[in-house]
Each structure stands twice: as structure tokens, then as C-alpha cells.
């Protein structure tokens, strides 16, 4: 850097530092603009991630059903979910439904995997506890009310079936055989003793079911026939998800994978609405920043007409005048950009913490981008004011007017 460049820097900095009270408005405009823009940018890029997590917490977004009239086995489910990358698979829960009787009233028994059920049905509200193994049950609220159950109670499920000579009774741990006096047919009463861990509240049909483990249900029904459906929660957006589901459906498996429409569709609707909102806000903020910087620079230049005239009378070329004022604007833009990007991160983080209760990822790329955008915007905003600086006639200014 030669002496000329040093003097140039010295003048630009002196102007900005010693006249800071004048420049503060423009700087503030740039800082506010950069803060809002980088904050919005961060939120915008982070929201799809946050949003997916949020929507997933409202339930599974994929459902597996048997292709034909049959059932789906555990192995088939495992094979199908292996299509999803492990970091995207949040969890899956199989369900098997059977009709049964309790106190001679028909009830629906549902077998499931309690360890993963909250991953696909996070909205389940349980008073008491989730069953942690065999012999324990979760009872829907309506059903519990009907039978007057409360947590800690015990009851038995009964499954009666006809026993023939071929019936293998060894798989049943606890049974009683009796003979129908009229027909002479033998029946077996198979009991499943259950203790009630918790009562389930969902606002949906689940409140009518009795949930038990798949093992208990298999034992009670004397068969492990497989499941009726499985719910899966996958951290992927619509397009991506569709790809995985196609893979599963085109495979030779016996199951059909379908997206759960309600959740995934609304997810992308909200996101695209958010997208246009962000674009509009960005445009407005950019325009406001430019207007503010431009008016400040106008005022600054009007105030400095005499100085400009003097510089010209000292032999300054138009290009030097442009360079000097533009540099002041650009320094302003850069300083505003750096400050704004950091404030923007704090802003985005606060919003994210409040709305999604999770921190936002800081993107280092944000800083250079914010600087470039602020510099470009201030540069653009300076163009018209600087034109008027170039137009200053040294004579008018110095003649003592």
C-alpha cells in the first residue's frame, strides 16, 4: 500500500469515525436490514428441518398395509423400513387387531410394540404409565370408563375355542377345558391376566381399545399371524419420501407403503406459504434499507457540497470523488453486514427457541453472504446521491455562497 492508498484509507476512515453521529443512521439502517435478512435467511433454511420435526410429532407420515388379504410379518416390516436411511427413520410401530370379549361385551384388542409407539403417535396422552412388557396393558379412556377401570387394576381377557383332538394345548400356559353338556364338544377357556399400567387419551378411536404386547396377543390368540398395519415416522419431505415409498412398493414385498396425506401435504403447503412470505419480507426490507441509506447519503452529500467543491478545486477528478463516497458507503455496508449477520443469528435463534424450542444451526457462510448483500445494497443506494456529488460545481460552492 503506497502513501496515496494510505491517505485514501485515512480520509475514508476519518470521515466515518469523526462524523459518526451523521453516519449512524445509515449504519443503523444497514444493521437492521442485515439483521432481519440474515435472521430470516437462517430461519428460512432451518424451518423445513424444524417444521418436519414438528409435523412428525403429530404422528407417523407413512403407513404400511398388507397388499392382499393377508397380514404383514415382522420380517417384511423390517425389510421395508431398511429402505429409509437410518438417520431419517424415526421409528415404526406394528399393530395387530383382534376381536375379543370382556365381561361378555365385545372389545377390540390391539397388539403393539410399546417401546416405539410414542415415536409414531407422540400425541398419545397417557395417565399412568406406558406398559413395559408382557402382562401389562394400556386401556383407552372410553373403554376404561365403561368398565370402571383405573390404573393398577387387574383383569383377565378370555378366549374360548373349541378343542379337537388335533389342538396343541402346549402353547397355552394357562387354560381350562370344559365340555358343553348339550353338544358334548370340548372347549378351552384361555385366560390372559393383565394389569392396567395406564389409560390412553387421544380423542380418537384408540380410546375404545385395549392395548397389549404382540406376544401376549399371540399367546391369547394361539397364533402369530403377523400384523394388520404398521405406522412409520420418517424425517423426509414429500418428494424424497415418495422416492422411498416407490422403492418399497416396487419391491417384491407383500406390503404397501402409503404416505399419510394429511401430515405430509400440509407440511409442504405451509412451507411454500412461508417461502413467499420470506420473499416478500426480504424485498420490503431491502427496499427500506436502500431508501434509508440513499436518503442519508443524500443528506450527507448535500451537507458536504462545500467539501466536494473544495476537493474539486484542489484537483480531484470525478472518479476520485466517486471512489471516496462509494468507499464510505461500502465500509458502512460491510460493517453493517457483519454486525447484522451476528445479530441476525441471535434473532433467528431467539425466534427458533420460542417457536420450535430448538436452537438454530449457525451457518458460517452467512457472514460473507450478508456482507456481500449489504455492500451491494449500500453501493446501489449510494449511486444516485453520488451522482449529485459529481455534479457539484466547485465554483458555486467556493464563491462564498
Amino acid at each position: 500500500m503506497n502513501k496515496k492508498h494510505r491517505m485514501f484509507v485515512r480520509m475514508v476512515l476519518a470521515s466515518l469515525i469523526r462524523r459518526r453521529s451523521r453516519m449512524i443512521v445509515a449504519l443503523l439502517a444497514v444493521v437492521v436490514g442485515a439483521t432481519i435478512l440474515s435472521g430470516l435467511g437462517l430461519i428460512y433454511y432451518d424451518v423445513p428441518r424444524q417444521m418436519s420435526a414438528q409435523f412428525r410429532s403429530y404422528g407417523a407420515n407413512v403407513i404400511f398395509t398388507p397388499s392382499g388379504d393377508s397380514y404383514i410379518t415382522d420380517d417384511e416390516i423390517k425389510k421395508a423400513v431398511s429402505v429409509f436411511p437410518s438417520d431419517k427413520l424415526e421409528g415404526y410401530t406394528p399393530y395387530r387387531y383382534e376381536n375379543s370379549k370382556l365381561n361378555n361385551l365385545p372389545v377390540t384388542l390391539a397388539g403393539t410394540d410399546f417401546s416405539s409407539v410414542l415415536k409414531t403417535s407422540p400425541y398419545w396422552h397417557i395417565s399412568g404409565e406406558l406398559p413395559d412388557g408382557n402382562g401389562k396393558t394400556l386401556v383407552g379412556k372410553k373403554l376404561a370408563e365403561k368398565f370402571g377401570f383405573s390404573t393398577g387394576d387387574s383383569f383377565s381377557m378370555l378366549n374360548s375355542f373349541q378343542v379337537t383332538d388335533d389342538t396343541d394345548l402346549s402353547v397355552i400356559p394357562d387354560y381350562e377345558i370344559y365340555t358343553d353338556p348339550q353338544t358334548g364338544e370340548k372347549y378351552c377357556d384361555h385366560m390372559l391376566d393383565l394389569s392396567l399400567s395406564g389409560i390412553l387419551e387421544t380423542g380418537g378411536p384408540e380410546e375404545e381399545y385395549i392395548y397389549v404386547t404382540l406376544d401376549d396377543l399371540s399367546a391369547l390368540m394361539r397364533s402369530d399371524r403377523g400384523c394388520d398395519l404398521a405406522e412409520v415416522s420418517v424425517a423426509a419431505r414429500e418428494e424424497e419420501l415418495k422416492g422411498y415409498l416407490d422403492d418399497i412398493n416396487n419391491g417384491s414385498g407383500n406390503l404397501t407403503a402409503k404416505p399419510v396425506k394429511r401430515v405430509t401435504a400440509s407440511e409442504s403447503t405451509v412451507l411454500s406459504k412461508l417461502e413467499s412470505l420470506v420473499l416478500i419480507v426480504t424485498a420490503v426490507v431491502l427496499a427500506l434499507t436502500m431508501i434509508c441509506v440513499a436518503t442519508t447519503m443524500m443528506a450527507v452529500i448535500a451537507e458536504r457540497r462545500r467539501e466536494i467543491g473544495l476537493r474539486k478545486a484542489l484537483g480531484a477528478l470525478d472518479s476520485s470523488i466517486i471512489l471516496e463516497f462509494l468507499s464510505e458507503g461500502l465500509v458502512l455496508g460491510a460493517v453493517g453486514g457483519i454486525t447484522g449477520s451476528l445479530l441476525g443469528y441471535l434473532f433467528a435463534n431467539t425466534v427458533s427457541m420460542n417457536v420450535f424450542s430448538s436452537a438454530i444451526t449457525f451457518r458460517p457462510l452467512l457472514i460473507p453472504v450478508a456482507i456481500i448483500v449489504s455492500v451491494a445494497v449500500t453501493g446501489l443506494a449510494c449511486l444516485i446521491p453520488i451522482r449529485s456529488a459529481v455534479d457539484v460545481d466547485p465554483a458555486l460552492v467556493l464563491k462564498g455562497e
Partner: protein
Amino acid sequence: MKLLELKNVTKRYGSLYALDKVSLGIEKGEWIAIMGPSGSGKSTMMNIISCMDKPTEGQVFFDGKDITKYSRRKLTEFHRDKIGLVFQQFHLINYLNAVENVMVAQYYHSMPDEKEALEALERVGLKDRAKHLPSQLSGGEQQRVCIARALINSPELILADEPTGNLDEANENIVLDLFRQLHKDGTSLIVVTHDPEVGEVAERVVRLEHGKIISDKKNSGFAE
């Protein structure tokens, strides 16, 4: 060849003749005072010489070239290379300190050099004020910074419009001493003043009235 020559220069504002067919020649190294009552056209003449204003009619030659026909760019070069301006209102840049104000003139002329700029300030007796901002300097001190700035690039001609107009007697004497020195170094000086004392010390006095030169004579009491 004369350094500067005005030929039939007229400047008209509507029906008012601020300058009326003025012809004047100035030799290299000459020290001229232009005097006259208020409104007689002194500043107008100065502005035309410094090319801050174009005459309605007539020509102005500097080193034999008609500067009224110069393009903007050539005028800028002319200001930069040939003349030093001393203003009644000083026109210092308010956010630059004394030495930086002098360096600005170097910056546009050739190469800023803080040491040289400090020497120029020393010449006008302001070395210890070099780091002060204009607002921290008295009127006399500001005028001297303005003079240091005008002489830093060793111009052939220094134009000063009422350089002592805002100064008390002590400061006026300091400024006049500086002019004497510049004159001794061979710089041509044109000083507009309505102060007789400032006129007296010049080599030659030109008097204006109603835009016309009414007298032009060598100062009998001029001490080389």
C-alpha cells in the same frame, strides 16, 4: 510572455456589468493586490482567473493558453498543477486535522507526504497544531492551514480572496509575512483585499470600481 493575461474580460449578470472589458497582464513572480469597494467586481475577477467562473466575453491566458476554453478535465488539472487557492472562509475539511487537510492537496496533486506537510505547517508556524481539527483552531490558525495547503504543491500562482478578512492584526501580519516569503521564493501572488494595509505591502496595486480598472500602479513603498 506574461504568466497571466486578461483580454477584454466582461462578466455580465443580466444588465449588471460585474466586470466591464477588463484587460490586465501579470508577470511571473509578481505580487498584485486587487482593491476596490464592495461590489466593484474583485471576487468576480478572481473567480474568472481561477476558472471558477466563465467570462461573458473576453479571454484569459495562462502561460499563453486560453483557459476559458478548457474542458472540465483540463480545468481540474489546471487547478491541481498551477494554482493555490486561499479562501476567505478557509474551506478546511472539518473531519480532517490540520496536517491531513494539507495532505489532501498533496493527495490530489501527486503523493501525500506527512513529513512535507508538517514542514509546510511549520512554515506557517503551526507545527504544534498539526493534529488539531479545524474546530479546535482559531480563525487565524485555520487561515494559515489554508495557506499551507495552497503552497504545499509549490504552485506558480497563489490566488487569495480576502485572506485577512477574518483575521486580527497579529494574525494578519503573520499571513503577510508568509506572502513576503512566497514572493521571495518566486511565487506569483494575486491578493484581493479591501484592507489598505494589505494593499500597501504588495508590489503592484490594481483598483477596480464598477467592474472597471480605474488605476494600476507599482507600489512606491514596496520593499523587495
